[in-house]
């Protein structure tokens, strides 16, 4: 078996993604339960009920897929598949180690963003296909939110690209051997982190699936395997965005050499994931107008200012003095 084959099927590819995504669903429930002094999943087997995702998966596969009345069946059934595809494809360019990347594209970061940019389109299509009011409102909210927060996300990633002098994710990680980019691009990190919280529809930005108002937002009408695919896509996107933060700001696979590179990468990624999950147990949801206002008048301005700051850092030689 060639190295590429192993990469696609086992390690950064299919098997690893499925297992980690399943783990994340359990991890989030358990973590939130511990934050709120509950027990969380316990009885499905394994330590702490870690086999819960398997039980959920089997249950959801065997449940009936209910088509809502007068729903658009083609879109309703295909969009969840496309969502999983879009969430899994960017992992082809995420470097888990010096030799653990499926494709080292010259335009890696744009590839990732091109895939995530298709998410709002798919979500609004699914919401429309459900032919129901709650999903449609959730889909519109999701569209607003993701389109607004995409822009600061791209611009804050631009400062990292400027520091590294390349759009290839492998080159970006290689440029961080001496100094992680979180130090010279700290504001970009803050903006990027807030933007991905909104992109992932995580609390305090989870307006698209606000439970008290919209039942479950844009996936209210989905059931059975359709729901499972959407859940899978959302958690895969969570993992993808955490991995992207690790690559862009936290030095990717770099760390003391006694632990192998992919393990460092996964440890850092899971720490970022934890930081994304914890606010769900702590904060309340913000209002729609506040959300849009923060996006356009704060994050966009900070990210643009940070681009100029990065230009200053590079031209004044400070970045070179930091070892970049």
């Amino acid at each position: 078996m060639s190295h590429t084959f192993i990469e696609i099927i086992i390690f950064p590819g299919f098997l690893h993604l499925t297992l980690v995504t399943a783990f994340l669903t359990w991890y989030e429930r358990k973590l939130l339960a511990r934050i709120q002094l509950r027990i969380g999943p316990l009885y499905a087997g394994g330590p702490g009920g870690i086999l819960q995702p398997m039980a959920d998966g089997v249950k959801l596969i065997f449940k009936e897929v209910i088509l809502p009345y007068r729903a658009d069946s083609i879109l309703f059934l295909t969009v969840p598949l496309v969502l999983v595809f879009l969430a899994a494809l960017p992992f082809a360019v995420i470097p888990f180690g010096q030799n653990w990347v499926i494709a080292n594209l010259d335009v890696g970061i744009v590839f990732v963003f091109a895939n995530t940019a298709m998410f709002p389109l798919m979500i609004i299509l699914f919401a429309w296909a459900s032919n129901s009011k709650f999903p449609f409102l959730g889909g519109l909210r999701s569209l607003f939110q993701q389109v607004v927060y995409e822009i600061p996300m791209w611009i804050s990633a631009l400062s990292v690209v400027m520091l590294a002098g390349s759009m290839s994710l492998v080159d970006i990680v290689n440029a961080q051997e001496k100094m992680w980019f979180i130090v010279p691009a700290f504001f970009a990190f803050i903006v990027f982190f807030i933007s991905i919280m909104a992109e992932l529809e995580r609390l305090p930005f989870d307006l698209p699936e606000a439970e008290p108002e919209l039942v479950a937002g844009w996936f209210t009408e989905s059931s059975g395997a359709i729901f499972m695919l959407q859940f899978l896509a959302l958690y895969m996107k969570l993992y993808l965005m955490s991995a992207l933060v690790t690559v862009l700001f936290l030095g990717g696979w770099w760390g003391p050499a006694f632990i192998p590179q992919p393990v460092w990468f996964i440890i850092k990624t899971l720490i970022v994931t934890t930081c994304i999950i914890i606010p769900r147990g702590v904060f309340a949801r913000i209002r729609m107008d506040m959300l849009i206002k923060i996006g356009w008048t704060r994050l966009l301005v900070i990210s643009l200012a940070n681009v100029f700051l990065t230009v200053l850092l590079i031209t004044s030689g400070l970045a070179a003095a930091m070892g970049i």
Partner: protein
Amino acid sequence: MMPLVIPSDLIFVLLAAITIVSAILALHAKELIYGAIALGLSFGGMAGFFVFLDAPYLAMLQIAVYGGAVVVLILFTIMLVRREETDALSNPSEDGQSAVGLWLAGLLAVAISGVAALAGPTLPSEPPPGDLPVSGLGLVITAEYPIPLVILALLISAAMIGALVLAKLEK
């Protein structure tokens, strides 16, 4: 093991088929939503052409900007208009219009092929030297064509300010 080789002509024909068929579907779909989706597919086919022409950066931007933003805006507009109005708007087809369109398309095809035939041997001077990295693209844009870049930026800013002014006027 024999490496799998797909002839590039086949890829080209497939991409062309996807682009053209979905473009036609975009014009003829009864439901406007499907028209918008077909338009997105057509953009995707064009992105495939860019990959085919060794311009991956353009391909990615094509998907992100056209697939991710333009199609979303179109869908958004369609969904905010009431159903009956969109049905009334949906692809009004009059025989006179399609005849004019066909004539114009034929004229355009003749003109393009004429120009290509005239300029044929001189047009492709040399293939670009190897893989042009994205940084090379940036250098070309900023170092060789700075004035068109600045003019484009001004144009986009003017369009944005114009949109803002129009939105304020509505209130």
